[in-house]
């Protein structure tokens, strides 16, 4: 089988991991080596369904010996099987990189015999890529559940980011749908990655590498949101990735040798019955326990007929995936707690409203806020004001008291924000004052959007309003 055919099979086999994974570390060029890594990543193209493609995301092999119910590559499926030779995939990565198609490699695999045998093959591919082909770009490696700690350690020294997929939001669902996987072995790998990274950080700090102790102490003592208060001090950034409220890494990634871009995980949404509340609480605990960089959500695409799974005619839960990502963003960038977004009594996110807007409508007693005196944290709670907008407001009001025209000039989305703010005590003259009226108008406007209407039709749901 030639490389073209294998690539088609193994890219198609990897696509159900729908996460748009990009780069997560900055690494400058090195003499004699190919490429670099930039923290924000670069989306080199967008698939026909609109997901960004930054990395060459493929499986090493789709000849899997596991039998996960939802997976197109499970051992019982009758699909064409293919396996890359380690050097073949490494050369393909460099070929694509030099043509500016990708930022690096996202390497995953079906379980080719045993987890260790699969990981050894992945390690050989990455060794050729790093040592023989001198590739300095970005590499994301998936952890095969059940891989031995020694191999995991070697893999982590070749990859920038590692991810062990939780797959399903509860061990009960995992046991039911993935009989060959157990939650314990997945979390064990995550714990090992986290512990190795922490150990490395400690050693680097003790030996004087990475961030200085004084800087570390400053970072620990300060309120997280105090970083980079003014957007003029940061230039005209187009994205706000650096504005996450996550406490910064104590050591610079440049000094790290083991998984410098940290670890992430992925959850399949909609294949099992867990609620959004369950997923957000799980996310919160995973972020804290394993120092995860990201949790990715993949809306379940029903391609397999199985009694344990949703019917094959079930629509892809696109909006649910979207709302969960928005909630995840609120937790990482806006200082929201998972408990503020869902509760055991109201365990589902509203599909028609973004979670920030839904939270604001449910807490109207906290609004309107005065933009000329509100703290950054308060501004970040206003629908229509994002991390960049909030910092622009903070910078601009040093110079003068801001009015609604100024906010418009600062590119604040007043259509949403106007209901929740006032400027020098004045409300927007066009916006209603009555809380109930605001709630109705804002909710109606959101629900009537084309996106919500299209999805409601696809999902066969009726609006409750």
């Amino acid at each position: 089988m030639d490389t073209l055919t294998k690539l088609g099979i193994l890219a198609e086999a990897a696509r159900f991991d729908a996460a748009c994974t990009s780069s997560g570390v900055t690494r400058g060029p090195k003499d004699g080596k190919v490429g670099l890594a930039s923290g924000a990543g670069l989306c080199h193209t967008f698939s026909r369904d609109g997901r960004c493609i930054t990395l060459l995301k493929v499986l090493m092999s789709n000849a899997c010996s596991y039998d996960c119910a939802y997976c197109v590559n499970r051992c019982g499926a009758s699909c064409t099987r293919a396996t890359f030779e380690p050097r073949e995939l490494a050369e393909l990565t460099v070929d694509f990189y030099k043509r500016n198609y990708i930022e690096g490699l996202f390497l995953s695999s079906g379980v080719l015999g045993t987890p260790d045998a699969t990981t050894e093959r992945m390690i050989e591919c990455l060794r050729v890529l790093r040592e023989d082909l001198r590739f300095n770009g970005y590499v994301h490696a998936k952890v095969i559940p059940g891989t031995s700690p020694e191999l995991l350690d070697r893999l982590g020294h070749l990859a920038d980011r590692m991810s062990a997929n939780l797959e399903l939001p509860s061990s009960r669902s995992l046991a039911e749908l993935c009989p060959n996987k157990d939650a314990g072995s997945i979390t064990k790998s995550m714990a090992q990655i986290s512990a190795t990274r922490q150990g490395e950080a400690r050693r680097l700090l003790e030996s004087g590498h990475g961030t200085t102790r004084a800087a570390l102490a400053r970072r620990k003592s300060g309120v997280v949101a105090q970083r980079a208060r003014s957007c003029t001090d940061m230039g005209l950034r187009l994205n706000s990735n650096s504005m996450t409220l996550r406490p910064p890494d104590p050591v610079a990634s440049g000094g790290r040798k083991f998984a410098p871009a940290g670890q992430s995980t992925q959850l399949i949404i909609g294949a099992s019955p867990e609620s959004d509340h369950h997923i957000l609480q799980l996310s919160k605990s995973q972020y804290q326990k394993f120092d995860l960089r990201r949790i990715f959500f993949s809306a379940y695409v029903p391609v397999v007929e199985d009694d344990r799974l949703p019917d094959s005619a079930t629509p892809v839960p696109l909006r649910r995936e979207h709302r969960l990502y928005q909630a995840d963003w609120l937790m990482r960038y806006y200082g929201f707690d998972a408990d503020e977004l869902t509760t055991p009594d109201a365990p589902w996110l509203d599909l028609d409203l973004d979670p920030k807007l839904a939270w604001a409508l449910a807490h109207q007693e906290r609004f309107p806020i005065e933009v000329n005196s509100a703290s950054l944290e308060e501004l970040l709670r206003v629908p229509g004001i994002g991390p960049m907008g909030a910092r622009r407001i903070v910078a601009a009001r040093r110079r003068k008291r801001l009015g609604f025209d100024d906010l418009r000039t600062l590119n604040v989305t007043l259509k949403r924000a106007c209901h929740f703010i006032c400027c020098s005590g004045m409300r927007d003259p066009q916006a209603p004052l009555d809380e109930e009226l605001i709630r109705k108008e804002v909710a109606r406007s959101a629900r009537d959007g084309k996106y919500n209407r299209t999805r409601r039709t696809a999902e066969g749901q009726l609006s409750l309003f």
Partner: protein
Amino acid sequence: MTYLAHAPASMVRLAYSEDIQPALDERVARVPETESDPLLALSRRVYRGFERHVSMGCPLKRGKECPARCKGSCASRLALAAANDDQDAPEAIHRYVRLGFSEGPRIRSMLSDKTVAELDRLARYTLSECEHTRQFVRFSRLSDGTYFSTFRPKADTIPLTCDYFATRMRCERFCLLDPVHHVIAMHEDGDRRCAVTRLDDRLTSELSEHASDLADGETYVHAMWKRFYDSVGLDGRDASQRGYDLRTSWMPKRFWGGLTELDPTLGSAMPSKPLGPSGS
């Protein structure tokens, strides 16, 4: 020119020579077309003076120098705005420069000022176009081993982004041609920077013809990339399911013609891999 710099802002309006439409009471004063040394020296002096003036007290400054990585901040956003094709760019820059000289470092917090906002809009668009350049440039390997790309941005982004490609592909010889702005960036193996050259129409069209002189096996690499792209799309998530076209909003259609993965001439069924090097 020096006289005009001292005239009140309301009495002077800057425009590209091809966009000039003088009002009844306006007179046209043309800047010489040639890149004469005194003119360049004057531009540099104004730029440095402006930078010194507005960056006073900036926490990012190292000594007297603005950091090279301080993209888009106070002074360097002038260069970004100047690279914008918008016909209003000269006048917006003119007003911003005057405002900077009169307000000094205060201009950094004047984000809601109309003059600053207009310059920011132009600069932000150029930055966005620079990002598109880094995203959507597609190199092809030519028969002499050079990597070549033709790219058509809506701002003069090649001089702003070519050094990024030089760091990314330091060990390669490559050319990046922008036929719209008549500019080419050339990089030799091992160099830290690119040589940027302005071209005339004849040279631009001559260089464009090189793009078809592909190395052996190059079409196969193109076909592999297209196969990968075609294989990763997922059903149930496309424009008809969303109510809007997410792909087009992230990847404007004006770039599609230059994207290998959307090249309709690369058939899905390709011959098996030819013998010989594939280019890595």
